[in-house]
């Protein structure tokens, strides 16, 4: 069993695909991991795919030329589904697409179902963070939010907030992947960082208390159902939601 690691960047992802599609490497008995989540354990048989921007670019152009447009646009989404482990499924589908151009729509093929499911979960996760993202106002009126989504949704999420708050200064940090988004006066940047910490005191923002209070009072006591609440708000996201913070 050979374990292959790639660095978690889009270039790394495309380099990996290129190795398997254009260079026709065998896919039997292999495992593929994104090294952001699974670090190499120094297994007996392992290999690291080094990102090669030129190779990645060429392969990107190759895909653009050869894939149906709708499917080509999904490739980036499959990359963003980084914890769904769909790399192998995508390679299997891409290998067959020359013979059967409609295979990506054939739901009798298990790998297609896997990709389809990952894509749906990705959009579900993104929609969830449209709602769950909580900004804290820093003293210089910067809105700061930290979150840890299941998939790498930030590249497809920031447009929502920029469109909504065009005149604000925004920082969003995906602390799981160390991906940082910055926005000010219509300029934006999405960058990988080693770490990012901001010190703030929730006491200085009276609206956190107002929100917590509103959150408690809006519930109808006769309808109380923590079970239903838990099914909608997983415990893992609650640390990012001020309404669940301990009393300030």
């Amino acid at each position, binding site marked *: 069993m050979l374990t292959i690691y790639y660095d978690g960047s889009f270039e790394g992802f495309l380099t990996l695909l290129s190795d398997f599609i254009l260079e026709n490497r065998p896919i039997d008995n292999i495992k593929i991991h994104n090294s952001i989540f699974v670090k190499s354990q120094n297994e007996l048989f392992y290999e690291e795919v080094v990102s090669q921007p030129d190779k990645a670019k060429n392969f990107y152009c190759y895909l653009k030329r050869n894939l149906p447009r709708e499917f080509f646009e999904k490739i980036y989404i499959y990359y963003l589904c980084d914890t769904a482990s769909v790399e192998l499924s995508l390679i299997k589908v891409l290998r067959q697409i020359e013979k059967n151009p*409609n295979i990506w*729509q*054939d*739901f*009798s*093929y*298990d790998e297609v*179902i896997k990709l*389809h*499911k990952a894509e749906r979960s990705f959009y579900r996760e993104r*929609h969830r963070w*449209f*709602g*769950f*993202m*909580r*900004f*804290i*106002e820093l003293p210089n*009126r910067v*809105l700061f*939010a930290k979150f840890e989504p299941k998939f790498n949704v930030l590249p497809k999420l920031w447009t*929502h*907030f920029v*469109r*909504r*708050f*065009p*005149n*604000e200064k925004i920082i969003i940090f995906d602390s799981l992947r160390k991906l940082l988004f910055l926005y000010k006066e219509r300029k934006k940047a999405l960058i990988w960082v080693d770490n990012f910490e901001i010190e703030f005191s929730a006491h*200085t923002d*009276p*609206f956190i*208390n*107002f*929100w917590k*209070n*509103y*959150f*408690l*009072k*809006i*519930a*109808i*006591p*006769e*309808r*109380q*159902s*923590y*079970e*239903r*609440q838990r*099914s*909608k*708000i997983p415990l893992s996201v609650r640390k990012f*939601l001020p*309404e669940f913070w301990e009393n300030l």
Partner: protein
Amino acid sequence: MNSPQILERRKLYFYTNTKDILQRLSILSASARYDNSCSSSGGKREVHPYGIGNSHLSGICHSWSSDGRCISLLKILMTNYCLNNCKYCINRSVNDVPRAILTPKEIADLTLEFYRRNYIEGLFLSSGIYKNSDYTMELMLKAVKILRFKYYFSGYIHLKLIPGASTELVKEAFRLADRVSSNIELPTEESLRRLAPEKSFSELYKPLKIVREIYDEKRLKAPASTQIIVGATPDTDKKILKLANSLYENKIVRRVYYSAYIPVNKDSDLPAILEPPFLREHRLYQADWLLRFYGFKLDEIFEEDENLSLRIDPKLAWALRHLEFFPVEITKADYYELVRVPGIGPTSAKRIIKIRKNSEISETTLKKLGIPLKRAKYFITIKGKPLAKFSQIKDLNQENLCLFSEKKC
């Protein structure tokens, strides 16, 4: 425009008056919680170049309160002082409850600050009747005008139309808000007379009719909603849904909310109940969905009884009464045949139609795509083959519900 000075001044005001505002916010949000509507879908506004906010067509839930209901809007009353004495309402004039009022500016500022922090999608503003209907409506409109014209706020706003407010004010409310509503409260004039003596059907209908008349897109339902209380009077489910259906057919509202009666007051005219009829409310929503999205007619839902069965949902009840309609062949049936199958809703039906164009359908494919077959299997065939055992299909009837029960019978 939100200049830095305005932002600082606003923050300072709320910081120095935290205790007072907290108290008023508590009273007014607790007073507003019995309104069931909290949807933020359907808005089409785009952000103003100098402003803040836009609408998301499908709506966004930002949190879920401890009763499991979605929080999407800042749902508050402007004031819970009220001239009316509706017997079911916690804010009735004779009740000795803490009363409060928020100024239009405070409401606008709270909404904006909550919105900036992404706590909410917008504002749901209702109110008790303070002094008179027009005065109350004007105060509410003032809050909305501050939001729309001073802060250039394009987020979602739902405004409650105060019964008895003048036509001009209703028109203005409709122009400024994304959705308006007027609660009809009870399904018959007689029930209203008994429990809400100051209200009348014509008065509650009037704002909705004005909205219907001024809404340009005549072929679409007006962006308005209403709420009916369930279980406070002896009215049957059929009567309630008949009213809802006529509102939908005449395109007066997009949505009717049903609210299980929760006893918050004591009065001889109110029913003595041990538990609010939450299950009945749920069944009414299910039947409402059948009317709006599944192509069912009112008479099909109420063929035998005036009330919906509490044991099974209305679609399963219809299916068991009409076994001659089944089995439905999954590979050939059209959309409206598919959605009649218990367990298959509009999403699954659309998915089945989409996938059968390009791939072969089998039980495994359906399962892998997340289409639930637990109920559907008794009512469908795939390429002529039934999915359930013949003996089980033979035993299907309204008395034998073991097949659909969660527990073993």
